[in-house]
């Protein structure tokens, strides 16, 4: 028997998922995370699983972690230094010079990850074509490195201007640093991300160096703990492109792990779309503090290269997941103009909603959902986490209902409506920015809280169908089980897209493809089924932003070039609404991705249960449409078999999430156990 196991460590919970590759039988567990020592959490997760899954049978182990993200947020990374081009040591702080909040006079910028005294300059200068205006002065460099040695730094970032065009100066510095400061962690920007736009490259390089030592130690510990638990295969770690890395590779590029949870969610959404035959969907994964939103178009998650984490730019190839500050912990308040506000402040996981009974004093969305009866008073996680309905009722009554002159239920219903409007606002601006109309999409609802309000979000956005996956609360962990091994290579090389580009483009892509093949061989992956994908980013001359277009396989001749430019014109029209057929096209970045296939588990057919579902009990739920509390049937998700349907108003409960089906809607159970909800 061979089994795949995924362990996803989030801020609040650690999700563990296991699936039998042949039968498709799966197991899910949710445990509290252990931020102080995350490897403990992973080991505990495996231990919890071992009763049902013999760990020696595990043939693939995939891992997602917030260890890097936490270190970044809490400022607990390594003592990191930077060597950069003379005159640019402060670029890390100047960034793009926008301020963090438009109207807040007392806003703070994020603390730079490298203090100014450890940001040292190399006497050197390159131009955009890679030629040297000034050669590297090795003597002064040696002095700088010796200074850093005395300061006891643990990690070094190297980022020089135009190093994407010529990496020789960075390589020289790297060699000297490894010589003079043996044992320290080194990240050079030309190794990590040879792309133009210096601030984003610099920031990514520094984040990587800052997390490197800590993440290397963590990943080694993880490998040891899982081996000790009886798992015979080394872990793979998910990264921001939704692909998995071997352990050593993840230690080299820890910056890629900080977006791992959302990326795994996007992979999960794409796999859900594939099994339901859906091309376009908006995935909404709503947890305690935030909601991750991702577009699936053509069956694939939208790609993006830029993202900010805790105010730090991280610009690695990845999936485009947007984080909205709306979750179960969002605080409900009445402003002095008597308007109802939900968020942006959040009670987070600690102290959390009032009903958690951990000291939260302000009403949150979760409290409102409990007041409405959508959440069970018995609590979350099958009762493992009890909820205090009396205090929720009291706080929503006092802080929301009274100031507005409403009943407590009306106020709670209002808070849900406002939260829905907030989410819709963010989803709309995301889809419009990419040239899409949300009405052409389906809505995937995941996370502990997503399925509780998804039908209302869909109604506001005029989306016809809501899909709730079989295990919405373990969406990211499930993504770990369906991800492939992947690495991306990118390099900036400016060229006009005409006949003169043929040889440069051919040679540039050949080098990247060679690097991809070497990498597959080094990691013993060459015998896996694998594909390499080639693409270029292109723009009209004079523009300052690029779009990726695929490069067809085979020889790059004039016909291939015409195919690429035609694809660019079409992509530009889709994304930006117009094309400029007469304008010269410029290629900017060359990209190659190597994807080594990890066999996907079969899905188990749902078993047991009744064709005509029977409610497990009835619960009082407040329905706005009727302005009253109504007895609603509550169903156990595990007892709903394929083909059966449930008419709203109804509640469907399961271990890791709750689904609310409003009056007028019907949920149908699919063959794989997913729910599809439409209006009657």
């Amino acid at each position, binding site marked *: 028997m061979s089994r795949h196991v995924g362990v996803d460590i989030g801020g609040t919970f650690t999700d563990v998922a296991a699936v039998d590759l042949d039968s498709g039988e799966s197991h899910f567990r949710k445990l509290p995370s252990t931020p102080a020592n995350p490897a403990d959490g992973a080991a505990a997760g495996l231990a919890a699983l071992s009763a049902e899954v013999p760990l020696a049978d595990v043939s693939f182990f995939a891992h997602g972690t917030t260890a890097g993200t936490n270190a970044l947020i809490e400022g607990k990374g390594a003592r990191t230094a930077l060597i950069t081009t003379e*005159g*640019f*040591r*402060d*670029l890390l*702080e*100047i*960034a*793009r*010079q*926008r*301020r963090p909040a*438009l*109207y807040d*006079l*007392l*806003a*703070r910028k994020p603390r730079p990850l490298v*203090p*100014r*005294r450890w940001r040292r300059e190399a006497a050197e*200068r390159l*131009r*955009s074509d890679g030629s040297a*205006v000034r050669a590297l002065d090795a003597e002064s460099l040696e002095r700088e490195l010796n200074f850093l040695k005395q300061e006891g730094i643990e990690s070094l970032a190297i980022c020089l201007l*135009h190093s994407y065009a010529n990496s020789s100066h960075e390589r020289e510095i790297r060699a000297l640093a490894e010589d003079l400061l043996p044992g320290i962690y080194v990240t050079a920007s030309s190794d990590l991300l040879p792309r*133009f*736009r*210096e601030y984003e490259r610099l920031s990514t390089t520094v984040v990587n160096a800052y997390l490197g030592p800590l993440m290397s130690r963590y990943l080694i510990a993880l490998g040891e703990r899982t081996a000790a638990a009886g798992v015979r295969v080394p872990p793979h770690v998910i990264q921001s492109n939704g692909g998995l890395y071997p352990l050593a590779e993840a230690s080299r590029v820890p910056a890629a792990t900080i977006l791992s949870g959302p990326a795994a969610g996007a992979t999960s959404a794409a796999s859900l779309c594939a099994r339901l035959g859906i091309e376009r969907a908006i995935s909404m994964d709503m947890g305690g503090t935030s909601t991750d939103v991702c577009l699936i178009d053509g069956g694939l998650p939208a790609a993006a290269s830029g993202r900010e984490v805790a105010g730090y730019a991280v610009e690695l190839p990845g999936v485009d997941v947007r984080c909205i500050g709306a979750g179960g912990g969002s605080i409900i308040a009445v*402003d*002095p*103009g*008597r*308007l*109802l*506000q939900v968020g942006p402040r959040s009670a987070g996981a600690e102290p959390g909603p009032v009903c958690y009974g951990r000291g939260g004093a302000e009403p949150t969305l979760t409290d409102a959902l409990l007041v409405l009866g959508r959440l069970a008073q018995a609590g979350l996680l099958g009762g493992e986490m009890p909820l205090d309905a009396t205090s929720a009722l009291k706080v929503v009554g006092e802080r929301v209902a009274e100031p*507005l002159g*409403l009943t407590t239920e*009306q106020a709670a*219903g*209002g808070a849900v*409506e*406002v939260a829905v*409007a*907030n989410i*819709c*606002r963010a989803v*709309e*601006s995301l889809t*419009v*920015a*990419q*040239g899409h109309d949300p009405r052409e999409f389906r809505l995937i609802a995941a996370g502990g809280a997503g399925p509780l309000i998804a039908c209302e979000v869909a109604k506001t956005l*005029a989306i016809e169908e809501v899909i709730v996956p079989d295990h919405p609360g373990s969406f990211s962990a499930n993504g770990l089980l369906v991800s492939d091994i992947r690495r991306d290579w990118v390099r900036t090389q*400016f060229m006009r897209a005409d006949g003169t580009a043929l040889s440069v483009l051919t040679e540039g892509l050949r080098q990247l493809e060679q690097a991809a093949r070497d990498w597959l061989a080094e990691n013993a992956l060459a015998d896996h089924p694998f594909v390499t994908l080639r693409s270029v980013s292109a723009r009209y001359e004079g*523009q*300052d*932003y690029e779009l990726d277009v695929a490069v067809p396989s085979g020889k790059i001749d004039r016909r291939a070039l015409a195919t690429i430019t035609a694809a660019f014109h079409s992509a530009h029209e889709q994304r930006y*609404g*117009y094309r400029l057929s007469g304008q010269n096209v410029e290629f900017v970045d060359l990209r190659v991705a190597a994807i080594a296939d990890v066999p996907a588990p079969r899905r188990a057919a749902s078993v047991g249960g009744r064709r005509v579902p029977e409610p497990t009990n009835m619960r009082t739920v407040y329905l706005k449409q009727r302005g009253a509390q109504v007895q609603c049937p509550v169903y156990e998700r595990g007892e709903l078999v394929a083909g059966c349907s449930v008419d709203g108003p109804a509640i469907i409960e399961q271990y890791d999430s709750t689904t609310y089906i409003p009056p007028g809607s019907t949920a149908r159970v699919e063959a794989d156990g997913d729910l599809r909800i439409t209006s009657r």
Partner: protein
Amino acid sequence: MGADRPNQVDPITLSVISNRLLAIAEAMGEALVRSAFSPNIKERRDCSTAVFDRHGALVAQAEHIPLHLGSMLGVVEAVLDQYGEEIQPGDAFVANDPYLGGGTHLPDVTVVSPFFCDSGLAGFAANVAHHADIGARAPGGISGDAGSIEEEGLRIPPTRLATAAGPCEEVLELFASHCRMPEQRRLDLQGQVAANRLGLADLSRLFDDYGSQTMHAAMQRLLAATEQRMRCAIGELPDGSYAAADSVEGVAGEGPIPIAVQVDVTGDHLHFDFAKSGGPSRGAINVPLNALFATVYYALKACLDPGLPSNAGLHRSVEVTVPEVSILNARAPSAVGARTDTCQCVAGCIIAAFSQARPGRLPAPSNDASTAVVFSGIDPRSGADYVYVEAVAGGAGAGPDRDGMDAVQVHITNTSNLPVEALEHAFPLLVERYELAPDSGGPGEFRGGLGVVRAVRVLEGEATFSAHGDRHERPARGAAGGAAGGLGAYVIEDSSGRRRKLPSKVSGIRLLSGDRVEIRTPGGGGYGRPAEREPDVLGEDIRNGVVSSEQAGQAYGFDPESEGQP
């Protein structure tokens, strides 16, 4: 009628409608950034979008550039005045002129589209975008020393740009043909029309969902709610008169021009009086009335309630008085291209006045300048014209419990920089330094934010340099015993190493190949007495080289002998 009984909309519906209106303004903003061509709109997001009610009152504005509100307010009003009953479904109007069309300077081009539903005119979608050129004598159209509006480019009074039958091609053509890089201008303007069209479709859905009677009532109720919330904040201020004054640097030979505000608080009523501000400038730093209003609204929100919704309820809660003849009440044919410098100073004065009413709650003065530089010429590599525009950040004022932010754009502007690697690829220029300016943060218990030094060398061919900025002679002051921030400067160094200082507002400076321009921006003021600064924190500043040992000794009274070598 609904509008006469606004209270009939329940508070939940009101909150949801408020959110949906903001969503429409934000989606328009995304659509505009998406469909624009020029880097100025796309990369630097130098544009804004808003929704107005049928009377021309602002109901929702997306968070982009605070100053842009002025243009939209003015143009919607001008369109209503000029076209009134003639406004038809499918129309779109364009304007930029401060004297004929409610604009605030010519590169900010506003497009307004009326929204109709069953009962007639029901509102407006509007947006404004900063076009990289508007056909002025100086490329970019923002040079600080232009003498009159005629030198500043194409003037557009409210003009019909489209009807239900489609765009007015001849107007588009007239506009594009007056500007440099005409194809860019045409595409950007078309993008503006398209963004409004999206807003109208969304408004139509919203009106369908709630009915026009509820929508009109809700819009009025929303303005009332904002006014009530603002008046609550005003009511918490102690009654009294709070005055503050500063000055902006005029053009050559003009000297400083005073900017002064008196804020009178009476109960929940607020009155801004700018009577003591100076007369018009001969240069381009005059402020059209709508830009003054936008600045007042920005400062009010920032000082009293940063989370306040941006709508006309805020506008109703204050009264603004300004003399007929004033730098803050520009009259034709005064030039206005560089009004941002003056607006920044106005914002700074208002914050200084409020900090008397709210002691210990607001920061020391920020750099309060808008350092904008333009390099233009012909690239010898391609033979093509180039125009490189950049706004350079400065220091923010220190707060009562924290240091000021280093290197940020403050107050009414908020645009990104152009990456050095992008600009060196595109233009024959080399950026030699881009770093924080040590000692430019005003000393204090909490240090003012640092300004920036950016040095640009012309590598090939000749170039022309134009710029505006401020605080080259009078620094940002400190607060509560804190000291002043550093000054700004433009210095040209030729290839023989000879250095020449320029005034803060210049245009048409000829640069030869090998010449270098050093742009230095002002820092923010410090807060609290420098001697009170925590020794550890000061030591950290010294070790990091943001405070020199000279400044540490002179301004902070730091004695390395007694305190130990840092």
